[in-house]
């Protein structure tokens, strides 16, 4: 068993909501609500969920880019929840983030050399000629070359920019990298390239990833374990193929919403009913119950805990394992493909 790198305990992040004539706090958005998650060294944990489910907030809070409302974050066994100033800056050298929008995360007025070199300058690791060499090494690692050093972000394509961002994240030799939807703004061919690059880098740099995406296939491709989030909570955490062994009705619904490239199986998707409830006043009991076709009286009253249904497969459903979802189009398609 490898060592634990990040431990998240009962993490909560609420955003205050103001209103009225005098801008009083009238409520709060439960962006991340009581999430616990362990991440082991060298693995990739995928976080998946609809937009607005709090996955991005979770990623940022873990890195202390946002201050948690409640709960604890441990990094290499050290509590970093309350760190400030220099101590925080030092711990941040170990954990980096790659943002969703590479254009916005590069300063338009700074050349690539200085953008990628910024972590090195800031932490007084290198400057002058040494800096140039280091930056060049990093750029080469992500498949760029010396010509790119002195260009501005707007001279690159989306995929190249994302690789620049990755190079910057790797500049400090971090242990843990949060990938916040890194491929959602690039097209599919580039996406595959970038994903493979990330996998290679993970081996070369011995990285641990938290991989956030709304794209199930991408997450499946990248991750060792997958956490499914809904309204600020983790509903299912599975080490298995999410397309085959989902035990939570929400996960199943998500899986069956993925389109299948075969008309024979079309039209069978199990569509979720209703809209995502507001995270300002989340539903009582199980968060998913208003949209769940299996919901019973118990679901409205009691909130299900995450419980182990075997081999580290955690599910937060009162009826986990008891429900028969039938077969999703994806499964049938997968079978059809494998049998043919």
């Amino acid at each position, binding site marked *: 068993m490898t060592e634990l790198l990040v431990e998240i305990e009962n993490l909560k992040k609420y955003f205050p909501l103001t209103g009225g004539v005098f801008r009083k706090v009238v409520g709060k958005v439960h962006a991340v609500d009581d999430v616990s998650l362990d991440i082991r060294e060298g693995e990739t944990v995928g976080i998946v969920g609809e937009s607005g489910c709090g996955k991005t907030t979770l990623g940022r809070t873990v890195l202390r880019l946002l201050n948690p409302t409640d709960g604890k974050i441990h990094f290499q066994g050290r509590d970093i929840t309350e760190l400030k100033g220099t101590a925080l800056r030092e711990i941040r050298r170990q954990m980096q983030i790659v943002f969703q929008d590479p254009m916005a995360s590069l300063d*338009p007025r700074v050349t690539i050399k200085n953008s990628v070199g910024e972590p090195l300058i800031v932490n007084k690791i290198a400057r002058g000629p040494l800096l140039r060499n280091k930056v060049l090494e990093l750029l080469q690692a992500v498949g760029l070359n010396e010509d790119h050093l002195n260009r501005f972000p707007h001279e690159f394509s989306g995929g190249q920019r994302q690789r620049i961002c990755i190079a910057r994240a790797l500049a400090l030799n971090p242990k843990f990298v949060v990938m916040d939807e890194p491929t959602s703004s690039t097209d599919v061919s580039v996406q595959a390239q970038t994903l493979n690059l990330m996998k290679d880098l993970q081996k070369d740099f011995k990285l641990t990833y938290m991989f956030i995406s709304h794209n199930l296939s991408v997450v499946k491709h990248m991750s060792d374990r997958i956490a499914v989030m809904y309204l600020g909570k983790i509903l299912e955490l599975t080490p298995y193929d999410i397309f085959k062994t989902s035990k939570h009705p929400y996960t199943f619904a998500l899986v069956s919403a993925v389109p299948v490239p075969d008309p024979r199986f079309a039209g069978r998707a199990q569509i979720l009913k209703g809209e995502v409830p507001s995270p300002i006043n989340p539903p009582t009991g199980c968060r998913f119950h208003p949209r769940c076709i299996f919901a019973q009286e118990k679901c409205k009253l009691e909130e299900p805990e995450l419980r182990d249904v075997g081999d580290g497969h955690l599910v937060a459903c009162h009826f986990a394992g008891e429900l028969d979802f039938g077969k999703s189009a994806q499964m049938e398609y997968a079978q059809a493909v494998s049998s043919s």
Partner: protein
Amino acid sequence: MESYNDDKKTNGEDSLQFTILAFLQIFVGILVAVFGGIIILGNLTYGVMGAFGDVLPPETLGTYALQSVILLVLGLLLFKAGLAILELDSFAFSTSLYLNIFMLLISLTVGIIGLFFAMLSFVTILLLFTPSVKLYWYDAFKEDMVPRIKETRYSLHLVRKSPLVVLGIVLILGMVSLAFIAPVVAPYGPEERIWADAKDPPGSPSGGKNKTREIYDERNTNPVPRVIGGVDWQDPPPILIAEFTVYENETNPDLGPWIEYEIEFEELGDDNVSFYFAVYGLNLTTYQSMDESARAAHLYYETTRFGPRDVEEELFLYNATYTYVYVLWFSCDHKYSNWEIDIKFTILRHESFPDHIWGTDEIGGDIFSRILWGAQIDLRLSLTIVLVAVSVGTFIGAAAGYYGGKIDEIVMRVTDVFFAFPGLVLAMAIVMALGERSLDTISIALMVTWWPTYARLVRGQVLLEREKLYVEAARSVGASDMRILFSHIIPNTIQPLIVQATMDTGGVLLTAAGLSFIGFGPPAGAAEWGLMIAKGQMYLTSYPWMTVFPGVAILLTALGFNLVGDGIRDIMDPKLRRR
């Protein structure tokens, strides 16, 4: 590119040149900042004193208002650069190069002490290029310049494609260079009058040889109330001390300069008036540094008069020095009346004069020359105002945006209040509060009126930038708040600021000219465009050229700034530059 791999070459830390360079830079920084600070303080002090009494600052102070602000900032930056060089930060060297070049240029405009500063800058630049120092930074600098030169070239390409911006640049550069070369090009002095040529239409030749030149001094004053008779004249402070210059060509080789002086009092009423008038063969600075007995040796002419009233006298000055000081003591026994005293010197000239290509005003001032001189006054005025307002506004706005909370709330409410007053109206009220009517008062009033615009702008930009992903990215790699502020937020804020400031320079020019048009400006006779229009207004039907030309000058200058501001908005935005 092998120099990059050769780490040994970077081991210049022990080298003496580095240390000398760093400490020189630190020393120059402190010196320059202190110098700038002293002038600013001096100006402020005189400004405040001027609000309460009739105190005129020494000329040098007022003249260097613009430079002093720049020098203060420059000094602080140089100091910073020195510290960074001490730490061998590679960016520090190129920054130091820029700063010193800028410093060299600025220094040349601040008189004697500026030469000293310029020399120091020059030495610093030389030090930067000594072999061992150069090795450390020059290659990296050259490489950093490549993308910048590329961007600049592209900007210039965009500028060339936009005819309106080119027009604007031509207008601004034209006006600025006219202001600079005014002393050389202008055929007549800023306040020089030739009575015989009064009201000449454009293109008139000047009327022949042997003419007179007139110098005016026009003052409004509240004389010290006194009763005449048996009073020591030296006792009350003189109400007028000023210098005038007589030029070579105005001196009769046999007799020396011939001068006629004329003193007129207005609003005499039934007062008993008396005055004492004297001319010394000294310049103003020397005069002030001497005591009474030493001055007496240079006294050329004195006269004391009791009772009526306007005086016209001739006098010859037999001295080789050509700058004279005249002094006027003046008494009356009426407490409340407001006096206007006009002193006019008429000096005979012995040569012919250039044509008046744009005509003359009602008392024989050459419009063309006065517009050139006015370019100096008006451009300096509006640039100083905008520069000070931008600095103050940026500082306050950045603080408000960055720290947020209470500071932000207070700053925003204060700017709200300022925004409630239209520029000219608030400036009018402030001018009135300051009492004195002069260019300095106008500039103080307009600085007070204009800073909130920039505070708002910068605050908004800082708030906007603060939320940007690249700021978060910088934070996540451990960048400090200061670094984020200076290397990400401010560079991205500065461009809308430049656009706004450029356009405002035109607006400030208009408002300042408007204020001086209504009658708040410098004393009558000064070569200021707004004032010239105000004078011309009275003769609009008969001598329209008095009004037309200064107005065109204002319009073109303001148009230039607006064209450039409007045009560079698009050109400067990196997000809009696609190839």
